[in-house]
């Protein structure tokens, strides 16, 4: 069996607006850092996967063609993968598949979005069917708030519980040098903040960011010759479900549950809450982190509010979730899921600096996009699986 590892990671300085670089320059910044982390140059890279969100975010279609020069990727295989908010993890999965198939040995994944350039929610509204719902769409926010409202009623995912996620992740972001939102908040402040799509309030919402992340993947001896601390991929999966299928309650995300079951089986996980040392989840709004606790099996259905209130998912708790601050610290959508994977790799290799979870050796990663219908899960470990 081919075992694939992350051998280098890089992230830009994320910001609300980077006026000093173009989209291509932004992507390059992360790639340069990842190459330096791995001690490689572009000459060592066999294949490049570019991952970014909907082209409408930045008004440049097929942006990967623009990145070729900036990455020094001329005459190499280069493709773009896009899959909504989970794009970055989908890009990493494409790279892993290239390596497992024997098509490449060392693959660079570069994920980015420069969200300051366009109209985020209006762009996202174009994901709706033009005949069925687009005219009433509020980006992803109206939808997300509506189903959180349903989960408040059915699963007890209260506004207070979500506010605790905001407090926790914003507190964690204080220690992450790459986060650009560094402001602590209290539960009371979150609850009193301005409603955008109630129950979602402005402090439940991550920033809109310009940013990029890059990860270099290699297998077995290649990985071991590049670094003494590979972060091994113990499992990764990305699932979808039909948009308008009958009886979609969306109280729980079925593709998330399927992806988690698949990956846990591959990684030998039977008790995720006990077996993981750290988790990085992609929470586009605070309410989603609560939902993911349940979908990932970290607590039973309806147990998320109790779990966050227990402090177990805060730094110092039994299973810190989002020590990086998650999306609340920075949210360049196309890069966000790859940032989660990179942060997990940093945690299990002891490279997370001030937001390191002590002695972390196995990390859980979650990513997602679409109307809760695209969901990915990965397990990353220090130990070769």
């Amino acid at each position: 069996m081919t075992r694939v590892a992350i051998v280098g990671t890089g992230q830009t300085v994320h910001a609300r607006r980077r006026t000093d670089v173009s989209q291509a320059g932004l992507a390059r910044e992360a790639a340069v850092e990842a190459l330096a982390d791995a001690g490689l140059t572009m000459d060592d890279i066999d294949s490049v996967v570019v991952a970014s969100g909907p082209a409408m975010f930045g008004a440049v279609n097929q942006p990967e063609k623009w990145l070729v020069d900036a990455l020094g990727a001329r005459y190499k295989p280069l493709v773009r993968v896009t899959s909504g908010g989970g794009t970055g993890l989908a890009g990493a999965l494409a790279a892993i598949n290239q390596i497992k198939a024997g098509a490449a040995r060392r693959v660079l994944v570069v994920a980015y979005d420069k969200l300051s350039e366009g109209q985020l929610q209006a762009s996202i509204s174009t994901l709706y069917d033009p005949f069925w719902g687009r005219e009433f769409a509020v980006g992803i926010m109206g939808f997300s708030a509506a189903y959180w409202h349903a989960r408040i009623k059915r699963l007890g995912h209260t506004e207070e519980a979500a506010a605790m996620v905001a407090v926790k992740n914003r507190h964690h972001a204080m220690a992450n040098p790459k986060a650009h939102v560094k402001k602590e908040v209290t539960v009371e402040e979150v609850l009193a903040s301005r409603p955008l799509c109630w129950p979602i309030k402005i402090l439940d919402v991550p920033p809109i960011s310009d940013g990029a992340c890059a990860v270099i993947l290699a297998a077995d001896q290649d990985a071991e010759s590049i670094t003494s601390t590979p972060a091994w991929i113990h499992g990764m999966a990305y699932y979808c479900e039909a948009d308008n299928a009958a009886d979609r309650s969306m109280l729980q995300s079925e593709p998330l549950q399927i992806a988690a079951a698949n990956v846990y089986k591959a990684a030998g996980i039977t008790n995720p809450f006990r077996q993981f040392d750290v988790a990085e989840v992609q929470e586009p709004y605070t309410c989603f982190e609560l939902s993911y606790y349940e979908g990932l099996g970290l607590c039973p259905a309806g147990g998320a509010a109790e779990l966050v209130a227990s402090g177990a998912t805060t730094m110092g708790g039994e299973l810190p979730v989002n020590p990086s601050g998650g999306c609340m610290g920075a949210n360049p959508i196309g890069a966000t899921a790859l940032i989660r994977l990179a942060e997990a790799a940093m945690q299990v290799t002891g490279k997370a600096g001030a937001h390191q979870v002590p002695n972390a050796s196995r990390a859980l990663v979650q990513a997602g996009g679409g109307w809760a219908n695209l969901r990915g899960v990965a397990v990353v470990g220090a130990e070769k699986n």
Partner: protein
Amino acid sequence: MTTIHHADPSETMESMPAQISMPYTLTPGQATGIFLAELRNRRLIGSRHGDGTILVPAQDFCGSTGEPVTNFVEVAAAGELQAFTTTARGTIGMVLIDGTSTPFVHQILQADPAALEIGTRVEAVWAVEATGTFLDLAGFRPAGNPNTFEPRESPGDLAEPLQQVDYRMTLDYQHAYGQYYGTLFDGVKNSRRIRGVRCSECRKVLLPPRSHCDVCFAPTHEWIDVKPTGTIQACSVVHIEFIGQRLTPPYIYAEIVLDGSSTRLIHMVGGDAANADKHAVEPGNRVRAVWSERRTGSLADIEHFELLPADEDPS
């Protein structure tokens, strides 16, 4: 097998026009930012790279190595036409600026295309008034004089890079209804009927109608009238304002399961009872469609859904 009762073709709407138009604030980066800023000074700025090439417009990174630009050079505002094509809207051509390595595309102005040849000498035409865009260089026109300008290294008086280029993308679409949306919206428009399709296997009724059930992947086989009443599956209160919004906030966004169907319909909940306390409208509440005066053949023919008083609930 799928059996469809085709609507009278004369009543069938073929396609729906739609436009997406959005503003952007693009960032050109350092090198192209300097190039754009210097157009105001009627100078063409290129970038010199480690592999010996000079690129115009100036680029941050070398195409062959990916390395950052070494230094900037001022180049001649003249070059050679390497390729061109003419349409009713004019001529565009690939212009290789003297001393540079890669041609770029621009308008060829004030020229009878019959007089143009591959290799024709051209010179820059500057916009009368600079506006901070690529069109401050209006284009190129044939030039008589051979160029003697040598690239000038590292001009010390370079303008600060332009940090932002405002842009608007406007895209027009014609979305084909197809037979399923066509039949649904014909019914909505002409007889205020909402019709879904029933899956031949699981027997569930699907909206919007479609040829196959997503779960069973079995064909749908009959049209079923769905009631204009239903249950809110999920709802939120929209307070934010954004481009393209139909209503003035706050209003209620809702995903509604109509009676007799098993899928979600996205709409809004309004009316006096709902608007009296929007936060009190909850998943599980019963609602009914309020038809609009409009007959557009779309979901907008429903003005909104209103809360259904218990004594008027048919279920």
